[in-house]
C-alpha cells in the first residue's frame, strides 16, 4: 500500500499503539529507565517529549524536504536534525522561562534532557525513512510523543506500587525489574496489532 495515502489519524493511533516508539522501537530507553521512579516527574518529562516531538517532526520534515533534498545534501541529515532539535529546545526553554515561571519549573528541567533523547531523534529519522507527508509527520510526531509519555507514565505507576508492596530479587532491583515490566507491557501492546497497521 502507498504510505502517503494513509490518513494522518491512522498514523497517529498506530504511533501510540502498534508502533509505540518505546515498546516496539526501544527509543528513549535511557531517560525512560532513569526517570520512571516517580509518577510526577515522569509525567513532566512525558509532556515535554510530546511537545518537542510534535514540533520538531514537521520542522525537520521541512528542513529535509525543502532544504536538504533540493540541494542534494541528504547525507548531512543527521547533523541538520540534531541542530534543529537542539536549537528548538533551546529557544523553547528561553521562551518558557520568560513567559511562565511555573511552567519553567515543571517543564524546564526536563528540556535539556530531551536534546539527547533518542525518542525525538528516532521519530525524525523514521519519518524520513518512511517518507511521510507533512501532515502525516505532524500526526506521527504527536503520536510518537504521546505513546512515549503513556509508556513512561504506566511504568512509573507500576514501579511506585511495586516498591511499596513487593519484594524484588536483589540483583534484579532497579533497571532489571524495570526492563521486565516493560517487556510485559510490550507484550500487552502486541495485543493492539491488527487494529491499525502502518508498515
Amino acid at each position, binding site marked *: 500500500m502507498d504510505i502517503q495515502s494513509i490518513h494522518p489519524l491512522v498514523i497517529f493511533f498506530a504511533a501510540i499503539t502498534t508502533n509505540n516508539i518505546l*515498546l*516496539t*522501537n*526501544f*527509543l*528513549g*530507553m*535511557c531517560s525512560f*529507565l*532513569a526517570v520512571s521512579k516517580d509518577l510526577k516527574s515522569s509525567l513532566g518529562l512525558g509532556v515535554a517529549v510530546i511537545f518537542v516531538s510534535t514540533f520538531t517532526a514537521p520542522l525537520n520534515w521541512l528542513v529535509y524536504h525543502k532544504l536538504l533534498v533540493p540541494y542534494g545534501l541528504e*547525507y*548531512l*541529515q*543527521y*547533523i541538520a536534525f*540534531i*541542530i534543529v532539535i*537542539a536549537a528548538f529546545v533551546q529557544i523553547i526553554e528561553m521562551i518558557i522561562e520568560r513567559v511562565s515561571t511555573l511552567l519553567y519549573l515543571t517543564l524546564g528541567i526536563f528540556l535539556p534532557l530531551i*536534546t*539527547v*533523547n*533518542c525518542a525525538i*531523534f*528516532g521519530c525524525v*529519522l*523514521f519519518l524520513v*525513512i518512511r517518507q511521510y507527508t507533512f501532515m502525516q509527520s505532524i500526526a506521527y510526531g504527536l503520536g510518537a510523543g504521546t505513546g512515549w509519555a503513556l509508556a513512561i507514565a504506566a511504568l512509573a505507576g507500576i514501579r511506585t506500587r511495586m516498591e511499596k508492596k513487593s519484594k524484588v*530479587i*536483589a*540483583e*534484579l532491583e532497579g*533497571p*532489571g*525489574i524495570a*526492563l*521486565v515490566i*516493560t*517487556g*510485559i507491557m*510490550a*507484550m500487552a501492546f*502486541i495485543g493492539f496489532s491488527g487494529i491499525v497497521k502502518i508498515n
Partner: protein
Amino acid sequence: MSAGPVKGVAALKRMLWEENPVIGQILGICSALAVTNLVKNTLVMCLGLIFTLMMSCFTVSLLRNVIPRQVRMIIQVLVIAAYVIVIKIILDAYLPEISNELGPYVGLIITNCIVMGRTEGYAMNNKPGDAILDGIGAGIGYSLVLLPIAMIREPLGLGTFFGMQLLPPDWTKWNMMVIAPSGFFALATYIWIVRAFKAGEGKR
C-alpha cells in the same frame, strides 16, 4: 568517575567488566534492544559503535582545550554526528542490505548515551591516547553485552545463526524471541546474571 583519573590500558579494561556501560551504567539500551535479533546486524552495529567511540573520543580529547565549556555538548554532538555520517556512507556503499535493516539505528548512534557519556565524562579531561583506549574499551564492553544476547535471540527465534541454519529445520520457531518483548526480557536476564555474579565476587 570517582576513582580518580584512570590512565592507559586500565581505562580500557575497566570498561569491559567493572564499569561496563550497558550493565553497570545502564546506557545505550535503545540499540542494545533493537538490533539484537540478528547476529549479523549486531556485529555491524558494534563495530560502528566502537569506531564512533574511538574516533570521537580522540577528536574531542584533541579539542578539549579549545572547546568553550558553555557549548561543549553541542560540539561533542557535532563531532559524533560527523563520524556517524561516515559510517552511514560506508554502510550504504558496501553493505546496503544491512544498512536498510538497521534503518534509523545507525543514525541513532549519535544519541547513544554511551558516546556522549564517554566524551563528556572522560575525553574532555584526558589525553588523546587515553581517550582512544577508553573509547575502545567502552565499545567492546557494549559489544560484550550485545553479542551474547543476539546469539541467544537469533537461533531461538529463527533457528539460524549469522544467517545460516543452525538448528534442525523442524525446529519450531520461537517468534517471541525476535520481536520487541524478548529484547527486554533478554537484557533483564543478562543484567540479573551479571549482577548475581558480581555480588558473588564481592562476598569472596
